[in-house]
């Protein structure tokens, strides 16, 4: 049996398995992998088992809350979960448990999900490493960030779904590097109250999942029923028009990523879509916009901590906060204005070419070794803080939905991925295209997983 939501959900209703057995297996595997991979920073076995028992009791009484009933879900440790502290990977935060759930967590609970625990985040959700979490495909490498623990938890099938946040790529980066699916929804579609902010104008919440369907079912819960992406998921993409972004910030790429992009183009063509390259010159300025907004907003959020406890902030993040503190307000204003220009340019290009979705590499490279600050991409060396963001930030800036889908491996066996983006509000189209593509290019990711973490390993025994 696979560990996807669909299979677990079916098995729960057939009586093949119980929510308690799933929870017990999760607790055993989380404990066994904690030291090596560190996907979670906090797990409360009593709460997990109590929620699982409630799910079982309700099912036995005929109360069925839907697809997520009895399913364990990880929650990034910047999102409030009642009974757990929200540490955000930072000593600046309070160690006391919070008294209320974030809205997204309330919605998960109402849908019957079992909150499995808090997943590891890069400090203050501001980075792409997420120490001490490790990449399950090669534990000497980073899982990406800032939702790194969520990527690891899903890649190892400890949970089929985990929540992440994405300000410059922080859902899609770990999804790509860990070989999972990751969906950054349309800006504003998923509520962010009860969540530690980084940059309020760019912050998005969304799911990482083993499969596209896992992400779709999660999204429909996270939006409180405002979306119904599941119902049209398998509609196919025949006659769709796909624009490929492979220039500007989407170049250069490592060879394996370029090959994954080509494979994806071929697959989309096989599915009946019309695929053409497009160029959007305004995207050349996307990093100036992304960082122009982030530094100003993050500095404002963390002003007191920077002044009073600067030695408790990672030096790279501290540098960013200082930069944002001395940057004139006009620079942030200009970045916001340029953001609108870029968003409109993407819309205009999609109109001009009559496009349904965009296809782009999620990242230009595979997971870097933990101690490396730079990686070779094409003919040059790039700082991973930039290389990991230049291909993801365009859709934070535009606010469009984007779904990262695994599409192969490099020579070292590390996952590569592409992303599909739709117009703002058309999350269902992005997910539908991703679902179609996944059938053709992500089979090994969906079924096998990293060595030692097969996604069809037994659940019913502990």
């Amino acid at each position, binding site marked *: 049996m696979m560990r996807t939501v669909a299979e677990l959900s079916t098995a729960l209703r057939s009586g093949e398995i119980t929510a308690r057995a799933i929870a017990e297996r999760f607790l055993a595997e989380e404990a066994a992998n904690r030291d090596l991979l560190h996907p979670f920073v906090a797990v409360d076995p009593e709460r997990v088992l109590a929620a699982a028992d409630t799910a079982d009791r309700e099912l036995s009484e005929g109360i069925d809350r839907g697809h997520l009933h009895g399913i364990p879900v990880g929650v990034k440790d910047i999102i409030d979960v009642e009974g757990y502290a929200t540490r955000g990977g930072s000593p600046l935060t309070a160690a006391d448990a919070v008294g209320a759930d974030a809205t997204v967590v309330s919605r998960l609970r109402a849908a019957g999900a079992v909150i499995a625990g808090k997943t590891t985040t890069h400090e203050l959700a501001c980075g792409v490493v997420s120490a001490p979490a490790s990449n399950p495909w090669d534990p000497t490498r980073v899982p990406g960030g800032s939702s790194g623990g969520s990527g690891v938890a899903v890649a190892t099938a400890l949970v089929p779904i985990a929540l992440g946040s994405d300000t410059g790529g922080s859902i899609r980066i770990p999804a790509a590097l860990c070989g999972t699916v990751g969906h950054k929804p349309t800006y504003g579609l998923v509520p962010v109250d009860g969540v530690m902010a980084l940059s309020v104008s760019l912050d998005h919440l969304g799911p990482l999942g083993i499969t596209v369907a896992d992400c779709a079912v999660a999204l429909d819960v996270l939006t409180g029923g405002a979306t119904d992406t599941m119902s049209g998921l398998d509609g196919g993409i025949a006659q769709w028009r796909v624009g490929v972004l492979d220039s500007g910030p989407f170049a250069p790429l490592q060879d394996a990523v370029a090959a994954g992009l080509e494979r994806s183009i071929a697959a989309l063509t096989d599915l009946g879509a019309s695929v053409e390259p497009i160029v959007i010159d305004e995207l050349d300025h996307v990093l100036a916009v992304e960082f122009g907004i982030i530094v100003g907003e993050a500095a404002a959020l963390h002003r007191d901590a920077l*002044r009073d406890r600067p*030695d408790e902030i990672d030096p790279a993040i501290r540098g960013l906060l200082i930069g944002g503190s001395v940057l004139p307000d006009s620079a942030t204003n200009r970045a916001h204005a340029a953001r609108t220009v870029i968003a409109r340019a993407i819309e205009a290009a999609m109109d001009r070419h009559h496009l349904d979705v965009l296809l782009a590499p999620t990242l230009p490279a595979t997971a870097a070794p933990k101690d490396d600050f730079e990686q070779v991409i094409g003919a040059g060396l790039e700082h991973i803080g930039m290389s990991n963001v230049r291909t993801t930030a365009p859709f934070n800036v535009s606010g469009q939905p984007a779904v990262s889908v695994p599409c192969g491996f490099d020579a070292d066996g590390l996952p590569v991925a592409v992303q599909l983006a739709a117009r703002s509000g058309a999350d269902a189209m992005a997910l539908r295209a991703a679902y179609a593509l996944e059938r053709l290019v992500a089979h090994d990711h969906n079924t096998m997983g990293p060595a030692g973490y097969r996604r069809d390993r037994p659940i019913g025994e502990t």
Partner: protein
Amino acid sequence: MAEHSPDTDELLAGVHERLAALGLNGPLFDPAVVAADLAERLELDRSLDALIGPGDPGPPPLFDPALR
């Protein structure tokens, strides 16, 4: 150091005072390091002239993803 516009030179020269006004004092806030970083950020900001022209457009309205 690279040549800057008069506005940029003024900002860089005022880094020490800006840090002090924010209460950012001590060895972690070396004005020379902060000024070098600020120069890079201002250069990035100037590159946006290609999209929006020079000058301050003022505070932004709330971003609307449905821009069409």
